[in-house]
């Protein structure tokens, strides 16, 4: 089976979708001729023409707003916001328009759009190229939120998102674009070509939205993670020797609660890891759900490891980033509790 980077896998998902369905259009800043600042859309304009893949003005509200109009017409836009940090001007269009169009019109108009955006830090991007705003989407009724952690899933989830009849936010952990980064920034990264989840089948396949994956089976503690933190958690488990069960959520909304509850009931302990800031982060929702559904099975308080509640700093990036050492400490404390 061919091996692909996450960038190639996501590009392949759009390529396959555009090839199968004329209604799929791709646009965003630098997305057309150049192929995007991360080169994710490279080659799509040459292959499908300027009507199907084109450059947009630097106007995120305009990109999402026009995509909503296109979807109302009957197209299936898959647009790129260059960095998740740039989505705020589009937030009104996403939350009050895309998310509610089906509901408010009772299905008269719908909004099958995908909004892709690179998320997370670890590239010395400073406060405006590093954010993880997933909780700002999961809090909104009417949006689905997906965070893939590997090339195989990224392709299958993106095709599923494009085929979904409702708006989907597709957050691409940019630190994973070229390999399964585990938080050890001082070590060379393993390329996806050497990782089994870098195997990406040709052609069409989907990974269904709303299904988590167990990345590492274990019995001592459940770790809930998504995106880059899946690999950070794996490194922490290996380095502490703790028999952790690591769940890659893949889709935050709709959430695969059944897989979470089954695991926590088995292990009796739960550590939640995300890169986004702690307060009101998606971990708070996860923690509440674990408490509501697994209270009588819990043997320790649910722990959260997250980005500190500061803006994402530049020079102190690795002090901010919740790396394997912090996750490892949380695992040890949760086991000792």
């Amino acid at each position, binding site marked *: 089976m061919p091996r692909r980077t996450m960038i190639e896998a996501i590009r392949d998902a759009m390529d396959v979708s555009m090839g199968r369905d004329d209604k799929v*259009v791709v646009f965003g800043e630098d997305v057309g001729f150049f192929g995007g600042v991360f080169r994710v859309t490279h080659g799509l304009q040459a292959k499908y023409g300027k*009507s*199907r893949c084109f450059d*947009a*003005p630097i*106007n995120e*509200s*305009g990109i999402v*707003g*026009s*995509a*909503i*109009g*296109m979807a*109302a*017409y*009957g*197209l299936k836009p898959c647009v790129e916001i260059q960095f998740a940090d740039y989505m705020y*001007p589009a937030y*009104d*269009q996403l939350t*009050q*328009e895309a998310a*509610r*169009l*089906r*509901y*408010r*019109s*009772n*299905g*008269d*108009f*719908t909004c099958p759009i995908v909004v892709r955006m690179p998320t997370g830090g670890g590239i010395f991007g400073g406060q405006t190229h590093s954010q993880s705003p997933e909780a700002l989407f999961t809090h909104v*009724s*009417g949006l*689905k939120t997906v965070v893939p952690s590997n090339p195989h899933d990224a392709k299958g989830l993106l095709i599923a998102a494009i085929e979904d*009849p*409702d708006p989907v936010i597709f957050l691409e952990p940019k630190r994973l674009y070229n390999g399964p980064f585990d938080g050890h920034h001082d070590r060379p990264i393993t390329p996806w070509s050497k990782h089994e989840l870098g195997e990406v089948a040709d052609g069409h396949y989907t990974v269904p939205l*709303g299904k988590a994956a167990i990345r590492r089976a274990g019995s001592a503690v459940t770790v809930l993670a998504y995106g880059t933190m899946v690999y950070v958690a794996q490194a922490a488990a290996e380095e502490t020797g703790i028999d952790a069960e690591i769940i890659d959520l893949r889709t935050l*909304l*709709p*959430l695969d*609660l059944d897989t979470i509850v089954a695991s926590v009931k088995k292990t009796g302990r739960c550590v939640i890891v995300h890169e986004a800031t702690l307060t009101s982060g998606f971990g708070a929702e996860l923690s509440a759900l674990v408490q509501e559904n697994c209270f009588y099975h819990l043997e320790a308080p649910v722990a959260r490891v997250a980005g500190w509640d500061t803006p994402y700093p530049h020079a102190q990036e690795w002090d901010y980033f919740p790396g394997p050492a912090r996750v490892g400490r949380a695992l040890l404390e949760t086991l000792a509790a």
Partner: protein
Amino acid sequence: MADAGMLRFHVPEPEVRPGGTPDFSNVTIAEAGSVPRPDIDVDPRTIRDMAFSIIRVLNRNGEAVGPWAGLLSSDELLEGLRHMMTLRTFDARMQMAQRQGKTSFYMQHLGEEAVSCAFRKALSPGDMNFPTYRQAGLLIADGYPMVTMMNQIYSNEADPLKGRQLPIMYSSKEHGFFSISGNLATQYIQAVGWAMASAISNDSKIAAAWIGDGSTAESDFHSALVFASTYKAPVVLNVVNNQWAISTFQGIARGGSGTFAARGLGFGIPSLRVDGNDYLAVHAVAKWAAERARNNLGPTLVEYVTYRAGAHSSSDDPSAYRPKTESDAWPLGDPVMRLKNHLIGLGVWSDERHAQAEAEILDTVIAAQKEAESHGTLHAGGKPSTREMFEGVFAEMPAHLRRQRQQAGV
């Protein structure tokens, strides 16, 4: 010599406030028939002055004059008059229903009926409007059932939107009327996107974007102009300048730009101003802009100069922010009266027939209201079920909503 002393902060003020004498002497009104009608493929650079004039067809004597006249037959004009009268009567009844507590909220069109009623007749089947809350004439003039509108206003058991939306936030794809958001300006860029999609699909349909003078200050207005200009989208960009954004006079949004139409000039978009109280002028300009869009000539910005004779909504009292008699002083008159006088001048209408039509329309509206009220009003009779509240968030209900519906016991 410039004054280099202390800086002074500038806040624009309307000419007159409550208690003062209405004064529209600053509104320059072009003679009817005086503004030329260029070919639709005109170079936008050569018609920049049209963004500062006002295209008018009906003169003071009620005659249709000049190059924009002569597009509509007297039957079509009689139909247009009936649409405007129907909208006015519909508004009066629904405004009263709101005061009677049968619904929570209402917004009427008083004085602005010509804009949406005449515009609708310039479009073709399949074209899509992205309206604001004050374009119900698009529905009335397209034959959308009044009972259905009322069911929506009452949020009753027959409400096509299942009680999910504020009154008057209609939606009808079939009638080319995009779901109203209640947000401001968001629909403007969506209309451009819809038009882009039509062009991408090599279709023949066009879109119409709608916005009020106040909301042109929103960034989505500028987003729409950028995208429409860049991609030459087949869209008509409508700005309804009714002088007032709730209590804020149009100068707060307009700033120093002279007119709202002039906003389009920097984008290279042909930008016209039209007498919004002149049914014939609105229709003729809309037709011109729609033809441009359909012929791959791109967007046109049209500013309708009109006056909001009523309150912004059922929730405000205009006498708190403008003179009570201001609407009587408005120099462009009343759209219904002007079309009525024109038709009388043509010899196809009379005061008697007008009075008779008013009575007939009132009967029709009352009958529709009766039927709608048999399905319930906001606080009485049939209403959408609580169970339906949980439906339609997504195409397929996810597990967490199913659990919450269970918790709610429905």
